[in-house]
């Protein structure tokens, strides 16, 4: 928490602008970014591409049902205010986390949904990683499928993206590894049997075969932190939001795959 404050204070907007320019020029010339999808087996890719075969569709359908179900003291549904999600939620997930002016910091999609849940529906917030929250997030995310990620456009996010980058590059845990060591410097190589991906969060929430379930980006990051034997960041903490923001900004321009399937 303190570390973020310090990072924020010492980082300048210009650095961020430079980064975006670099990212953009990168994509203009030789975009070497790859989604994990590109390196998955044909079977798993087919599973992701076909709604009938994609196990995440169960959650998406649940989310669609929740969308039009009145809830809370207000007895209002998401649809009562937002109408047809295909229109109102199109492209929304592709630009999260966004800058929340009221709180002066970025907010992720799950937290944004829970905000409506609490203040608009006047219902108790969904627990992190709960089936209902995953279902609604997958349903909202599904409306951005195929659209390019645009996260990071807002200049007010700059110091938070930079804070996320520093977390990504910092060595952590008993193994003394950083995320960047694997995902920037050794992507494409094999960690025992696992192909190291570039870690672009293009498809969250994902159905992970290893989990036999849908799971959030935060859960995926906790898995990697556990592998590093590092203390995980608390759910919803500034650090985890900054890290998610950095990863999404790093994937800017790549296509949204939600809900993706991963090994």
């Amino acid at each position, binding site marked *: 928490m*303190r*570390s973020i404050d*310090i*990072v924020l204070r*010492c980082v300048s907007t210009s650095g961020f602008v430079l980064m975006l320019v670099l990212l953009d020029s990168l994509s203009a010339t030789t975009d070497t970014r790859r989604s994990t999808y590109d390196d998955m087996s044909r079977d798993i890719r087919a599973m992701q591409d076909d709604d009938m075969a994609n196990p995440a569709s169960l959650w998406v359908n649940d989310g669609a049902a929740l969308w039009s179900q009145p809830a809370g003291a207000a007895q209002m549904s998401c649809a009562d205010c937002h109408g047809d999600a295909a229109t109102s939620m199109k492209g929304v997930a592709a630009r999260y986390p966004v800058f929340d002016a009221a709180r002066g910091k970025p907010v992720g999609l799950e937290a944004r949904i829970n905000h409506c849940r609490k203040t608009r529906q006047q219902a108790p917030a969904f627990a992190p990683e709960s089936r209902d929250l995953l279902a609604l997030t997958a349903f909202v995310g599904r409306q951005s499928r195929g659209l390019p990620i645009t996260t990071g456009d807002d200049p007010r996010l700059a110091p938070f993206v930079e804070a996320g980058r520093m977390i990504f590059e*910092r*060595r*952590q*845990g*008993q*193994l*003394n*590894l950083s995320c960047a*060591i694997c995902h920037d*410097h*050794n992507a494409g*190589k*094999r*960690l*025992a*049997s696992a192909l190291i991906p570039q870690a672009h969060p293009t498809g969250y929430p994902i159905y992970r075969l290893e989990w036999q379930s849908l799971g959030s980006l935060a859960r995926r990051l906790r898995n990697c*932190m*556990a592998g590093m*034997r*590092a*203390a*995980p960041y608390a759910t919803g903490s500034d650090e985890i939001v900054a890290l998610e923001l950095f990863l999404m900004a790093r994937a800017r321009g790549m296509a949204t795959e939600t809900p993706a399937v991963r090994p």
Partner: protein
Amino acid sequence: MRVQRSNPALSSRPLDCFVASLLAMTAIGVAVTLGVADDAPTIANGAITTPLTATPGDPVRGRKIVANRQVGLCLLCHTAPIAEERFQGDLAPDLAGAGARWSEAELRARVVDARISNPSTIMPPYGATGDLTRVAAAFHGKQLLSPQEIEDVVAYLVTLK
């Protein structure tokens, strides 16, 4: 040596550089002791000549540790002449021939703390707990391998001629 970075706020660039230069200095041959126990090993010129334990290392146990993905973790990154382990990583050099390329003392130092010979190494320090950030509670203050396990691993590596 003990360069503690328990406060994550301190792990900013200048300190990293400071630590890196400290490590670089040690690599040039200043003898230092690692932040392990009272009987911390002495490292000189990237080598630890004195075994960490009185009991000599057992190469058979060492091979098992290297092969075990939860204990040694070596095969996550390395390949090694351990045919029964099908999935081996390709982030690091093949361990075959390591015993010919390095002396026993150099191999010991490498496993204890690879940062001594290469400050920017990605190989985890197996026998040192200093200068680590955000170690998970279950592993806090604990070495990746015990001194005896390290001796076993070294005894195995020596056989890889």
